[in-house]
């Protein structure tokens, strides 16, 4: 199979499995899903990382830490959508999950300083606007220098 076709197949499997379950799959689960060797999946993980479409878990390349907008680990940005709970990597990605799934969603987040509960909601393809703000601490040219911090 051509490299690009395989990368597309793996990428779609990651997102389809995540959308279905709320949990980002690992390389073994993807291997079984699309019936290819796990080492091929790991090679594709590397290519998708190079394209900035995926971040493997530091120290464990079989796990996916981020398949933006989805997080492979629980975060401060849980998103309820389609009867499932997902985790977003940041406030941008909390909206990103609703955008990717094309559905209503609610994220019970909190103020980054005070911890006060703040809710983000998307209904009928639009955000329920509130006077909250997102702070971008890292300039665009450096988001992938340390994506977990970003």
């Amino acid at each position, binding site marked *: 199979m051509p490299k690009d076709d395989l990368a597309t197949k793996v990428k779609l499997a990651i997102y389809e499995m995540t959308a279905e379950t709320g949990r980002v799959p690992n390389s073994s689960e993807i291997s079984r899903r699309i019936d290819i060797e796990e080492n091929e999946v790991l090679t594709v993980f590397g290519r998708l990382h190079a394209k900035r*479409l995926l971040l493997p878990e530091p120290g464990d390349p079989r796990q996916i830490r981020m398949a933006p907008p989805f997080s492979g680990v629980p975060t401060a940005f849980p998103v309820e959508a389609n009867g499932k709970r997902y985790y977003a990597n940041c406030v941008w990605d909390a909206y990103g999950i609703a*955008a990717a799934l094309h559905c209503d969603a609610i994220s019970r987040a909190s103020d*980054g*300083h005070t911890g006060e509960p*703040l809710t983000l909601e998307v209904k009928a393809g639009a955000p329920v606007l509130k006077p909250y703000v997102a*702070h971008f601490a890292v*300039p665009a040219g450096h988001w992938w220098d340390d994506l977990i911090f970003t």
Partner: protein
Amino acid sequence: MLLFRSEETVNQWCAAHNIPRRPLVDLEQLWQLAVHWYANRLTVESRRPTSDEMVSIFNSLGLTGPFWDPKSDEWR
């Protein structure tokens, strides 16, 4: 990228962590960014925007200057 109730709590957070205050984005802008980046993420065609496309998207939302330029080294 964190969420804050107001500019005031952003300033408090920056002071507490000794992090420079950087640009703020309101929820409408943030939603538009999410749609640009992720609306086709579950499709065969999905890809990350190129650097030039990013600048165009940011500019269309009023997010301008070197902070929003993926190719800028000014912030190093």
